[in-house]
């Protein structure tokens, strides 16, 4: 597959949006090429161009030696494509979906039994052939989708974000399937994802951001250039303070909290000058770390060290509170929908100023728990206290102290930034001088000055997120609920977002986060892992990761820990 200066624009009203801007790349035959980039980078557009579903605005695409624009049907004969919102017919059973796609792909009936058996075995769907596709779990749906596109083995397989939102166990299984498919070198795979940590699984990577190709090549090449530039720092102090201090050092381009330590990335292959820090922070240590793909991405986006980060959070100096007051307490919370138990006997407590995470795949019961905490949904049984209020009786006063940022962009896309701020502040009961003051604060704090009159719906994703957070903070809540706050945004926007969240936590705002994003869990002070409505494990990120520690895996990732926890809870029941 070869792309030559591919360009594509979309017109929305009077504006012209450039989705792809001169992408030139080549994917090797018989290998897995990862198309990696945040949401809105142009991944889906590129997939559709390759599949012949869109015509390029400029440049040419050659797939399997054919010009896609000239002969899309001939290319479509030889490729398999699994769109992002995969096209399974939910009213049809697993078997009926397979039959339909077998008919569409012209698989002769006498070859079907053998092919079905292979695919069902590979995907582990054999016991569920009579089940309707709509009743499958997220991971199983993706596997069925994959099976449908593989009925007649295509020469080129296009997978558009097959692993997003899928639980880590299914994700690992999907990768296993893809590895098996490409082992004999006959199938070429183009795999798109917003998870940067999946780069390592690909043979070759195209890194795209805002329609431009930032880099292409084997993933090892990306990490190789980061050799000697990644470090882990530890100190016996608040890790957020440690991060803030490190971010202020010269030559440091990136700092990320990873459990109990902070990952530091420098602009040049040399450790940062930390003598001063070592003197001021107790038990400070700095050790080289294996570079990650994400480090390379950030380094490409931000080749220079950012202008000295804003002064380390002043409030951080405050001593750790001796006895942390419980702000949210949940005990034996259960919610049933008919015979289905969405949340099953969940208990946890969150202290003031703590960042607490609910980690789980789609359908694990996170959102239901969240809705009950916000007082939007009454629990079937169990007790719930938020800011000292019993949500069953005093939802309104409790809500006045809660800020909520929904997963989907929940602002008014047709209003300007200023109008959104004004509306949400009014909705929270602010008026006159107080309202103006808060709007000014939000504008300054979130860097929205230049976007005040822009239409909210047309802002880049990272900006939308900032605006959503600003709106949720208008009434200065002391509890903040974040539902999948940074899924799909680029790493810089995510860092920016978490820096603000950390500042808030330092200012004693209690933050509750749901996420299916393993990395986001690292930012939490404490978290629970949820699956099928139950809490499987809880504790600090370090403690949770310790479960998966073994001689073979001395430094497990959150994903390793998640899989170990899920498998330990339900042995033999994968996904």
């Amino acid at each position, binding site marked *: 597959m070869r792309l030559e200066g591919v360009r594509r624009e979309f017109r929305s009203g009077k504006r012209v949006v450039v989705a792809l801007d001169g992408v030139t790349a080549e994917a090797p035959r018989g290998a897995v090429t990862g198309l990696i980039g945040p949401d809105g980078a142009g991944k889906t557009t590129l997939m559709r161009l390759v599949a012949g*579903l869109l015509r390029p605005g400029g440049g040419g695409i050659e797939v399997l030696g054919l010009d896609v624009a000239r002969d899309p049907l001939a290319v479509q004969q030889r490729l398999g494509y699994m769109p992002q919102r995969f*096209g399974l017919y939910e*009213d049809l059973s697993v078997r009926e979906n397979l039959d339909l796609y077998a*008919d569409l792909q012209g698989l002769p009936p006498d070859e079907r039994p053998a092919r079905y058996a292979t695919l069902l075995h590979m995907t582990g769907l054999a016991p569920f052939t009579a089940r309707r596709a709509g009743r499958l779990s997220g991971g199983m749906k993706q596997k069925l989708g994959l099976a449908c596109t593989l009925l007649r083995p295509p020469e080129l397989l296009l997978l558009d974000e097959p692993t997003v939102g899928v639980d880590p166990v299914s994700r690992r299984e999907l990768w296993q399937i893809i590895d098996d498919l490409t082992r004999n070198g006959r199938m070429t795979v183009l795999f798109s994802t917003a998870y940067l940590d999946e780069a390592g699984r690909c043979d070759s990577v195209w890194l795209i951001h805002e329609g431009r190709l930032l880099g292409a090549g084997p993933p090892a090449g990306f990490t190789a250039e980061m050799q000697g530039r990644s470090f882990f720092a530890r100190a016996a102090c608040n890790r957020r303070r440690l991060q803030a201090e490190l971010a202020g050092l010269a030559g440091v381009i990136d700092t990320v909290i990873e459990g109990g330590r902070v990952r530091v990335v420098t602009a040049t292959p040399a450790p940062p000058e930390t003598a001063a820090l070592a003197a001021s922070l107790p038990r400070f240590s700095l050790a080289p770390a294996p570079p990650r793909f994400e480090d390379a991405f950030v380094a490409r986006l931000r080749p220079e060290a950012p202008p000295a980060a804003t002064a380390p959070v002043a409030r951080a100096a405050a001593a750790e509170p001796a006895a942390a007051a419980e702000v949210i307490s949940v005990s034996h919370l259960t919610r049933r929908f008919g015979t289905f138990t969405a949340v099953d006997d969940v208990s946890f407590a969150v202290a003031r100023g703590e960042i607490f995470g609910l980690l789980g795949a789609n359908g694990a019961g996170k959102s239901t728990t969240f809705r009950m905490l916000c007082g939007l949904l009454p629990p079937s049984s169990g007790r719930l206290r938020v800011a000292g209020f019993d949500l069953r009786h005093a939802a309104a006063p409790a809500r006045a102290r809660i800020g909520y940022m929904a997963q989907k962009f929940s602002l008014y896309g047709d209003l300007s930034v200023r109008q959104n701020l004004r509306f949400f502040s009014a909705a929270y009961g602010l008026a006159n001088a107080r309202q103006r003051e808060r709007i000014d604060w939000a504008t300054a704090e979130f860097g929205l000055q230049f976007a005040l009159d822009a239409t909210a719906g047309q802002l880049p994703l990272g900006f939308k997120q900032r605006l959503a957070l600003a709106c949720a903070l208008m009434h200065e809540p002391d509890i903040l609920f974040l539902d999948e706050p940074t899924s799909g945004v680029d790493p810089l926007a995510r860092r920016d977002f978490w820096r603000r969240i950390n500042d808030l936590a330092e200012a004693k705002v209690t933050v509750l986060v749901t996420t299916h994003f393993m990395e986001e869990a690292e930012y939490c002070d404490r978290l629970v892992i949820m699956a099928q409505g139950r809490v499987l494990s809880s504790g600090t990120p370090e403690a949770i990761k310790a479960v998966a520690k073994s001689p073979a895996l001395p430094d497990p990732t959150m994903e390793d820990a998640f899989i170990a926890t899920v498998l330990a809870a339900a042995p033999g029941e994968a996904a």
Partner: protein
Amino acid sequence: MNASLRRLSGLLRKEFLQIWRDPSSLAIAFLLPAVLLFLFGYGVSLDARGVPLAMVVENPDAASADFTAAFAHSPYFRPRHFRTIQRAEQALAKREVKGIVWLRSDFTRRALARPPAPIGVVVSGVDANDARLIEGYVQQAWAGWLASWARTHGRPPPLLVDVAPQVRFNAAVSSRNYLVPGLIAVIMTLTGALLTALVIAREWERGTMEALMVTRVRLAEILLAKLIPYFLLGMGGMAASVAIAEGLFAVPLRGSFWVLSAASALFMLAALGMGLLISSFARSQFVAGQIALIATFLPAFILSGFVFDIASMPAAARLITHVVAARYFVAILQSVFLAGDVWSVILPNGAALLLMAAIFLGLARAIARKRLD
């Protein structure tokens, strides 16, 4: 079996399974028609019956009693007696009655002198239908009274034209008899255009269309796989509606069943063509539903001559009705049900339907692309 046929049969099987398992399609195809038929069959009637009418007789005597009795015995009126015209007018203002028949104290004397008749008639114009009814009936009653008075008194009847309207084709003058056939056009528009546009939009929303597009399937196969099932569903809805009309409401079917079926099939194709056309640019169910309602359902209701007579529409509206397929179908339906196989009505309207079906289906095929842009 060749590859194309196999793909088509696979798609068809899928479509039927979906229709069967998704209650909303079946509801639009069968439940909605039944509800509409019951509503129009039992609930809505354009016939005036039991219209409340004020009678003011200032000087009751045998002659006036004779006259008012004509109203009392009529099924169309429910007369109420008032002493004075003032009281009656109050009742009219309060909408307790829809009209006043006022016989002055000198009624009998002047009645026999010379026309005009000494009867005051006041009608409320709020409901034009009732107003016309009262007017016409008063004239008839007056004529009837004069004639019988002349007979009983052995005199030649006064100079009067005997107004005896004759109603043809719908002898019972029941609005049900022409509403129910017209309703069939509305019902078929629903399945043909609305349902088809909705199910295709749903495939776009769920991403299944995108997955279909990259398989070897040809566009014609995708379109046919939508056309065939919903054609059958629409014809099924039509058959059910006819059965209800015949069995429950005893609407006459004077023409042949085959003419009815052929005309329905043509109309169904035109409606499906509209549905496919809409779905080629509406990719969300909401938009598809809105467009289908505005572009097909409402015109079928308002501009087809189903409820409102086309001939009495303003010229501009009349012009628009020519592009409403339902107009031609309603004309055929009313003729087939109430008059019989009147070829001078059926042939030109049938030809118009054929033309519209060809245009819409042709456009839908020409616009459809196996691409997303």
